[in-house]
């Protein structure tokens, strides 16, 4: 069965394990995006649309460099440009390549009601299987980063695949391949974390005292990480969440309440059944009919 992946560690709306005999024994993968090296050329956007055969609508200028203005079913990655005036009064152009963060604990997958519409591979990539998608949009509700988009045409949810098709055959993602400055690199999560640490030492020596790695623990870490000059203020980078985690509301909705509610519904029906068996129906018999008639006759 050569086309079976056999490495699915999480599968949406599925209570038993999926085929997962193949592990990521050489380490889970990660893409590291170094915002400090990014020049905002958008080659990553172009490579993404080329590799994935996506063409977004030609939009209009909305007064800033973001183009298209937002992620969409056709734009799985997007450079977001933020102009930040630092305390010294200098302008800093903080450019962040937005897209799926491939959370270790994915909120989209937790929220999805359709079996197998979202999977996570052993290497850490979170992938949508659109043929199983029912178009409810719960993944959007579950995502802490506002990433998935429902297609207006086919009503399926789409997002960055981390080029799972390329990674599966030993290639790096298209955006990584094309990045001219080496701001996007790809490898094992361990290697990327180590590489980021070197970058951060370098940045700190250049005056970015708060430089750091964005690998938020609230979602178990991510398989897309950022090096930020201002890791203490991720919000500066076009609203990157400071402490992202799966919302407690989503956890409650999709967590222990599901089996408990089902059990309670079954128990309600069972109590009714046992009441019928134990105590029995409440029947109207001939004596009630006679009593009713007596009362009618008694009245004038």
């Amino acid at each position: 069965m050569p086309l079976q992946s056999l490495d699915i560690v999480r599968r949406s709306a599925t209570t038993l394990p999926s085929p997962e005999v193949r592990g990521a024994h050489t380490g889970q993968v990660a893409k590291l995006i170094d915002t400090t090296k990014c020049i905002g050329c958008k080659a990553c956007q172009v490579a993404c649309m080329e590799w994935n055969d996506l063409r977004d609508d030609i939009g209009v200028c909305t007064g800033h460099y973001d183009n298209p203005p937002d992620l969409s079913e056709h734009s799985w990655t997007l450079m977001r440009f933020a102009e930040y005036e630092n305390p010294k009064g200098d302008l800093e152009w903080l450019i962040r390549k937005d897209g799926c963060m491939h959370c270790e604990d994915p909120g989209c997958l937790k929220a999805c009601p359709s079996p197998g519409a979202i999977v996570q591979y052993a290497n850490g990539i979170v992938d949508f299987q659109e043929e199983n998608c029912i178009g409810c949009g719960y993944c959007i509700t579950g995502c802490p980063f506002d990433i998935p988009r429902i297609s207006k045409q086919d009503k399926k949810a789409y997002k960055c695949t981390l080029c799972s098709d390329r990674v599966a055959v030993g290639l790096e993602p298209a955006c990584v391949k094309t990045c001219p400055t080496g701001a996007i690199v790809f490898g094992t999560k361990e290697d990327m974390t180590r590489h980021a640490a070197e970058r951060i030492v370098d940045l700190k020596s250049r005056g970015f005292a708060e430089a750091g790695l964005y690998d938020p623990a609230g979602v178990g870490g991510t398989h897309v990480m950022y090096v930020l000059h201002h890791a203490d203020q991720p919000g500066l980078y076009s609203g990157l969440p400071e402490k992202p985690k799966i919302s407690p509301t989503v956890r409650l909705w999709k967590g222990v309440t599901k089996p408990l509610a089902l059990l309670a519904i079954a128990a309600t029906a069972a109590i009714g059944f046992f009441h019928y068996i134990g105590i029995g129906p409440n029947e109207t018999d001939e004596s009630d009919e006679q009593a009713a008639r007596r009362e009618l006759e008694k009245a004038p």
Partner: protein
Amino acid sequence: MSARHPDRIERYSSATRLNHWIVAISFVLLALSGLALFHPALFWMTSLFGGGPWTRILHPFIGCFMIIAFAPLAMNLWRQNYLERRDWVWLRKIGDVVENREGALPEVGRYNAGQKLLFFTIVVCLGVLLLSGLLIWRQYFSGYFSVDLVRIGALLHAFVAFVLICAIIVHIYAAIWVKGSIRAMTRGWVSLGWAWKHHRAWFREVTKDTQQR
């Protein structure tokens, strides 16, 4: 009812019965499609609706239809479900109710306290289901609301639907338990003895009316 049947009392007009069953059928479809998307173990029920995407498409429309169908039924039954002092006595003696000892209970009007509480439970649940349902109706409405609001909507929708499903199970069981009730909602009438036994105050009220006429 100008000439009253000697052995029967009309409890529900044909219009009310039709209205009730339209709501009931909608509810069953909604419960099945909703539960299918609620728990993975029940996802197979999406097949009853033509698959996952069709279930997702149909559920909210059936929901809107049920709300519209429920409105005249609710208005019809609203006043008769106001709680009275004697209803609290009835509720305090719920043990006698459950064990079929109706002799120990206060006289009941057209509806007993359990039926009245159920009625308003349904009204409140449907109101919350409508509002939360609009929040999570991704195709048309979710985009207008913040994701936090949509999350609360999703949780509320699931929780209130759970409460309603339990309430309707109680409602259905009560109809099976108290013999003669199902006929009231299918054929429209109850026997004199049924009315006298279960809803004596109502029995007096309706028989007095017909005698005066």
